[in-house]
């Protein structure tokens, strides 16, 4: 029986000719990732281990992105702990304030992840790198610690769901709308334990930033990973960003999929996930009149340059509605600089938005945009669970940068003008 793309990558990293769904394997890791929240717990676990030291100082990435610049003493202590660990073990890829970005935007940009890799990260959105044709998945801190110590991790080989994308999306339909549509269709556990493999001619109409957004939210459907085939666009991206050799794996023609869905991108409309689950989706024309208090444009899901360009195109020369706070967060220092050189930062500030240093802050209710009781936020982030961005009686509407920017102008949940 043939293998899926994910299964081929896992087989190669386990030193096996073939694997099948359900098989338990031990695979070599190309990269182990952690952030300022999950790494301290992993470091504590490593301290308890009899084996000291890390498996490879170049194959660990530690990114301070959740609560930096530090929001309080406790988060400063956490960063200090990771900083000292990185210095002690001479970790090459340690990213602190000034160099950091939101991890899942930063790693591809820095060329640290490429096609064919197996990557674990103590952050659930580690699945983002599937956009480049890598197998990457989120784990907890103990798995991160074991990965840092041994360079290996065990996996149950996943079965897969195939998403056949056809057609060309219309102007204001982005990767965010594609993945929200899919989560709305299959539910927040629709891909539990499984790979989500995105294929089809429609992919050529999706930019790399669209693909990162789609793979990023595979976890919101319960998926183990999301993955795209490697085409010319992905090759060009990796050649531009990375010096590393990459390996392209393709699914076998007779690979087995538990289900196949065909999605006509030309039929999709801007889509919004209503509180309090990413599966509660409606198209923007079914949204109704929802007054809002805040807009967040950023995060590992939608803080990339194309996202900012889209938002700026809508906000340029206009004003954010009175009573709405609009927070724009470029995901990395590079994206911030590019946005500045393109004049986007000026567009945002003149429209009445604020522009922040890269941080995960508001997405998880950390800081930089906490919601009060009864407040509603249109956000380009990835989760709208109860209390995710602040008070338990606040509400989050997940949407694309285009919808978020359009909503900032009207003060109600709105789509961009067609």
């Amino acid at each position, binding site marked *: 029986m043939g293998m899926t793309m994910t299964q081929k990558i896992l087989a190669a990293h386990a030193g096996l000719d073939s694997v099948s769904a359900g098989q338990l394997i031990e695979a070599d890791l190309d990269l182990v990732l952690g952030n300022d929240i999950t790494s301290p*717990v992993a470091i504590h676990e490593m301290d308890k*281990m009899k084996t000291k030291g890390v498996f490879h100082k170049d194959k660990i990435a530690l990114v301070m992105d*959740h609560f930096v610049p530090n929001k309080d003493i406790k988060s400063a202590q956490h960063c200090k702990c990771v900083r000292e660990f990185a210095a002690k073990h001479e970790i090459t890829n340690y990213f602190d304030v000034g160099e950091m970005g939101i991890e899942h935007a930063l790693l591809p940009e820095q060329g640290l992840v490429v096609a064919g890799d197996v990557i674990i990260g103590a952050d659930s959105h580690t699945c983002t790198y599937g956009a480049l044709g890598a197998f990457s998945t989120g*784990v907890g801190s103990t798995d991160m610690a074991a990965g840092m110590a041994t360079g290996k991790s065990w996996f149950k080989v996943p079965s897969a769901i195939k998403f056949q994308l056809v057609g060309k999306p219309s102007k204001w339909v982005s990767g965010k709308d594609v993945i929200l549509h899919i989560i709305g269709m299959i539910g927040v556990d629709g891909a539990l334990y499984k790979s989500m493999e995105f294929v089809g001619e429609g992919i050529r109409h999706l930019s790399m930033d669209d693909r990162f957004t789609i793979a990023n939210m595979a*976890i919101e459907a319960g998926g183990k990973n999301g993955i795209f085939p490697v085409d010319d666009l992905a090759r060009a991206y990796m050649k531009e960003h990375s010096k590393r050799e990459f390996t392209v794996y393709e699914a076998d023609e007779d690979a087995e999929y538990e289900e196949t869905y065909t999605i006509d991108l030309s039929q999709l409309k801007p889509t919004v996930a209503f509180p309090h689950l990413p599966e509660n989706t409606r198209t923007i024309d079914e949204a109704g009149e929802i007054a809002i208090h805040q807009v967040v444009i950023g995060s590992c899901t939608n803080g990339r340059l194309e996202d900012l360009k889209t938002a700026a195109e809508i906000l340029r020369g206009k004003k954010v509605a009175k009573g709405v706070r609009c927070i724009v967060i470029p995901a990395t220092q590079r994206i911030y600089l590019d946005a500045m050189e393109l004049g986007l930062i000026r567009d945002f500030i003149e429209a009445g938005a604020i522009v922040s240093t890269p941080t995960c802050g508001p997405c998880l209710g*950390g800081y930089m945009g906490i919601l009060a009781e009864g407040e509603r936020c249109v956000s380009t982030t990835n989760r709208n*669970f*109860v*209390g995710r961005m602040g008070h338990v009686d606040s509400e989050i509407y997940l949407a694309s940068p285009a919808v978020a920017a359009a909503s900032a102008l009207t003060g109600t949940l709105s789509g961009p003008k067609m």
Partner: protein
Amino acid sequence: MKACGRVFKYGDNVDTDVIIPARYLNSSDPGELAAHCMEDIDKEFIHKVQKGDLIVADKNFGCGSSREHAPIAIKAAGVSCVIAETFARIFYRNAINIGLPIIECPKAAQSIEEGDQVEVDFDSGVITNKTKQETYQGQAFPEFMQKIIAAEGLVNYINNSVTD
């Protein structure tokens, strides 16, 4: 090995943000995390929970973030076992790795109610509802998993199996 206690019952998709809200993730101390366990879904939980009590929930328990702080908070609150129809995969792995017993059993998830007295036998996988006088067959815990739980986590288990 057995777990035995009173049940706190929850529904579908209990996410890691309600198990331990991110506003408390500036700490990784189990005791501090436990003090806020389940706060955004059940403010009374931490005041009522007693050592040995169980959590029973419907599908996709622990969905969302990869924060190991979620099972750490539950374990440190004194919970002896979590039973659910299904678990989100990262939570499942994390719970085993830190030595929090969890068991998938749709029948138990459907039948057990808030406040029931329940016993779980890890060797046989049998879940006994003492209040309703019913039993449900869950999956037995493999020996290595019981050893991880007994060692209170994967790291201790690995250390125990390494001969100096």
